[in-house]
């Protein structure tokens, strides 16, 4: 097992793009090599050791047995865990935008808050956020037909707007509230929102959205029979009929 610990040594407000902070990129490298990995501070191409103090313990066979621990507030560090296939990233505090972009496998655990585009175009693996997450959790890139296709995202707090836009698979669970338009153009993923939201499932054609709190529904969903789940009563809707959709939304309370 190999553990790589990073903590920020700069107080710059200019963001850092560091897609090399990923078990796949770091597993096979010695400390000196890790220090020399490329990162970007705004428009400056620099090395990781110019921004972080880095410690390595243990050995790894591959990314599966590699854990990256981010100490402190990483909310200005973007693209951590991008395209990772295995292993773990643990952020002890916040983590910036695009964490787990195109993630294929492994785990990311964010103990603080996550920035926007968490798990964008994710295909597999698991992301857990103890705090809140920003907009576009599990969404796609602009203009694409597909967002997240697989894997799981669990958010203990609340999430921003456009959660799971163009979702094509996988699941997203938000214990708290969610901003407007969760699950827009959903094509087969599942979303659970413990709290409340506004206009879920716009243009969804498949998949499901469960809202434990209240939601304002679109007029293009048809109301079905009420259902009971784990002792609670939900109103069931089917749609979005503007797209002849057959998605399913369960809402505890409509407003």
């Amino acid at each position, binding site marked *: 097992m190999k553990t790589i610990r990073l903590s920020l040594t700069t107080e*710059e*407000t*200019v*963001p850092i*793009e560091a897609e090399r902070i990923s078990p796949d990129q770091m597993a096979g490298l010695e400390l000196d090599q890790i220090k020399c990995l490329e990162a*970007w*501070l*705004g*428009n*400056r*191409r620099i090395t990781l050791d110019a921004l972080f103090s880095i410690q390595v313990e243990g050995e790894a066979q591959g990314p599966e047995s590699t854990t990256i621990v981010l100490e402190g507030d990483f909310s200005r560090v973007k693209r951590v865990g991008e395209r990772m296939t295995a292993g773990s990233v643990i952020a002890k505090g916040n983590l910036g*935008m695009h964490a787990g972009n195109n993630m294929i496998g492994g785990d990311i655990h964010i103990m603080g808050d996550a920035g*926007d*585009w968490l798990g964008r175009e994710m295909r597999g693996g698991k992301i857990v956020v103890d705090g809140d997450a920003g*907009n*576009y959790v599990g969404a796609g*890139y*602009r*203009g694409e037909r597909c967002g997240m296709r697989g894997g799981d995202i669990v958010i203990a707090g609340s999430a921003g707007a456009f959660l799971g836009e163009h979702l094509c698979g996988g699941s997203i669970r938000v214990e708290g509230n969610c901003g*407007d*338009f969760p699950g*827009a153009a959903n094509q087969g993923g599942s979303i659970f929102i413990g709290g409340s939201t506004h*206009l879920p499932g*716009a243009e969804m054609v498949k998949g499901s959205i469960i809202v434990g709190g209240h939601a304002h529904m*679109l*007029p*293009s*969903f*048809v109301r079905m029979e009420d259902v009971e789940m784990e002792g609670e009563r939900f109103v069931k809707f089917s749609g*979005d*009929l*503007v797209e002849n959709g057959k998605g399913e939304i369960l809402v505890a309370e409509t407003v």
Partner: protein
Amino acid sequence: MTEDVLCTFCGCLCDDLRVEVADGRVQKVRGACRLGASKIMGHDRIKTPMIREDGVLREATYDQACARAAQILLEAKRPVLYGWASTSCEADRKGILLAEEVGGVMDTTATVCHGPSILGIEEKGLAGATLGQVKNRADLIIFWGCNPAEAHPRHALRYSSNACGRFTPEGRSGRKVMVVDVRETRSAKNADKFLRLIPGTDYEVISAMRMILGGKADVVPETVAGLPKTQLVETVEIMKNARFGVIFFGLGMTHSRGRYKNVDNALSLVAELNAFTKFVVMAMRGHYNVAGIGQVMACASGYPMSVDYSRGAPYFNPGETTICDLLNRKEADAALVIAADPASNFPRSTVEALAEVPVIQIDPFENPTTLLADVVIPSAIAGVEAEGTAYRMDGMCLRLRKLVDSEFPSDEAILQRIIDNVRRLRA
């Protein structure tokens, strides 16, 4: 008298103005609306380049100001270059080159007006037509969340409600005009039908209209966002029965709750209407060349706004690479503002963030942004003192005329001087 002058005020880009020039100055503007005439007549100019020292703007030479601007941009790790909608495409192209050379973020005023429309177009495309098509063919004109009577004063007469064309010889009396808005604007008062929305309900109203159009009215609740279904059914009937219908939409749709999703849904509604009749849709663009900077950027970078060149290749992600987001998160560490006034148009906290970084301003006129600028470079007025290219709200590309000589260099020339300085300093 110079004929067929282009108006450099709004996205209508009227090209039929007559301007009287004498003694090297514009004396009179004929045929323009009040807004356009006043823009072309001009007002107090910034007289000289200035550099802020010890908190005070002091006169400087163009050489000094351009060198200082280059230095600021080169020192910055995340400079943002903003504005571009009220100058020529030629200046815009220089701006893109400068952004490439300094690894900056290139963003435009679209970000605070029709940026959401662009995101909607990325989802759905846009069924459009030139304004002349509307003039010659449209018998149903819908203004949604826009008020041309105040913001685009000649739109109705030249292009839309009141224009006469080949298949619309009766002008206004042969047309139906509808306004959809949250309050009864002047445009609404002039309309045949006014649909009043509760603010922030555009999306659901459009969804209901798509349902009715698709023959699923039975599923739609009896009232949608406070509007009786019967009224929506009647509206959709009018749309279906038009020979040529058009929706012009404005900030009322793009900047109310729902944002780009509202536009996205409206674009689908229009596409679906084409199964029944001819229907097109158009954004009521504000600044006279805001469409142009979008075209120029798309050609050069693949994206029409908010392009981040910090890593050498264009990266586009509105919400991340848009100027307000960059400032709010304190990512930007310098700004070049050209032909725009963010100090007046941005939210207060964003303006405060802007005030904390070095700001370079290029503009013919002083505005509130001047107060927080560190380098001020006065320029010739595009379309009055400098030639160039501009794109009308419908994408028509036209050539701006030069009416009078100017002691000031053009935006294009100033930007080239900054680029030259950047290259010199880097070498």
